[in-house]
């Protein structure tokens, strides 16, 4: 059997609607998209960002591990964007089931899932 890195089940994956043509994003672009400063995928399609509540542990881990930021920083970035006319707020979902369902059904959607919630209704975006 192949050796697996520890905690593989707990890795949080960046996921998108199956029709999104971008298969990898670099970290800075992912940060810009989740901070709502970049509104389109690299090919021009509108991005629809989905996030869990600020105090959800999966959200906190995704923001820290994949975006190298803190949830309070991200919330401040959204407030600054929304109240200065530079962009819009992300779409909120209650839990990981709703996250998967909304990302799977919204064209241009991007979100994140724990590996155990993953199925073929969404595609995984690899991060550089």
């Amino acid at each position, binding site marked *: 059997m192949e050796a697996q890195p520890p905690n593989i089940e707990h890795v949080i994956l960046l996921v998108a609607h199956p029709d999104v*043509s*971008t*298969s*990898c*994003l*670099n*970290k*800075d*672009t992912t*940060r*810009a998209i989740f901070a709502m*400063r*970049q*509104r*389109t995928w*690299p*090919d*021009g*399609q*509108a991005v629809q960002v989905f996030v869990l*509540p*600020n*105090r959800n542990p999966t959200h906190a881990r995704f923001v820290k591990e994949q*975006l*190298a*930021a*803190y949830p*309070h*920083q991200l*919330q*401040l970035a959204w*407030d*600054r964007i*929304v*109240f*200065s*006319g*530079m*962009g*819009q*707020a992300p779409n909120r979902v209650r839990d990981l089931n709703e996250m998967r369902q909304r990302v799977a059904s919204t*064209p*241009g959607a991007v979100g994140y899932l724990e590996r155990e919630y993953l199925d073929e209704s969404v595609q995984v975006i*690899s991060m*550089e």
Partner: protein
Amino acid sequence: MKVSKSFQWSDRNPVRLLVCLLATPPTAVSWADESPLDTLQVHGFLSQALIVTDNNDFFGASSQKAGSLEFTELGVNASLRPSPNMLIAAQLLSRRAGGEIRDAKPTLDYGVIDYQMVSNQERTLGLQAGRFKNPLGFYNQTRDIAFTRPSILLPQSIYFDRTRSIGIAADGVSVYLEERISTGTLRMSGGIGRPQTGSGLSRQLFGNTIGSVSSSTPSAIAQILYENQNGKFLAALSAANVNLDTDIAGNPAEFNFQPWVASLQYNDDLWSLTAEFALRQQSLEGDNIPTSFDITGQSWYLQYQRRMTPTWSWLVRYDSLINNNADRSGYQYEQSGFGPAHSQFADDITIGLQWTPSAHLMLAGEYHHVNGTGWLPGQDNPDSSATQQHWNMLLFQLSLRF
């Protein structure tokens, strides 16, 4: 042949990068199966403060009776995306900070059409036309939204009310660029436009000595901001050049205002350290006017924020303003008979506490111990000779947003 360093196997795997590039061919698929109205968002905020001072008045008669309730901020905005790279956004703001009740009349805070012509993995380039918010320092663009402020009052040495109107927004065009570099992100923006010269401006700027204020020459603003790769370190430099036409007792005069702001911030999980330094050049020139001047002042503050729990945080800050570097104590100002020396500086020690039990509610309290009246609003204290050099201020604020 020597293999170049960038082609070595490293954390930036070239094969994965190549796959990444090849897998995203530019296509012209139509995604227009949703109506722009589906993208409509409406957000708003409301904050109400109670201000109590021992000496001097701040935003209303704060030294009388139980204090002043005349610091109210109310805003609502709407935005929509008619096409993937376009955003239309506008915000109405009603704000009262002392003064008359009619000051709370809603105004257009911003109203922009924003177009991102380039948006890829390396950069984002966009343009805003309309009334856009000026990026000056870390806080200017959202200075009226309590949830974006670390304290009830922003450090007044830099974000004082006197130059608020001319600095807050401009009617014109602004260009912004976000460039992703190997060590982090560079964000640049620059705009040209006319500042807002509403009815309260001459009173805020010069007291009651000036009749009208208008802007025939456009003003300019620019900011460059660097954020390192882990988002912990931010540095910014902002500059503006504002020109206003005024008249003093029928004689035309020109007011020029040039602020420079250098900003630094370090963010950790549980704390943030922020410092900003500003140089402000102000001049008023004209023939036959009684009070021409050309002065440079400076401001700086150092602020430490501590997040004790996800809902509770506290802050301590030292904030200093000097109105005229050539007369730091205000001695010459007083000798010339313009007013008390202590109106030319202000040193403010602030401690504050914020409680944010939900995303929609925040309660805050803070205490200011101030030496000097450099940023004390003139409209609340029309007789500067009656002001006290040493004063204390207690503020409480309730803020809501949706």
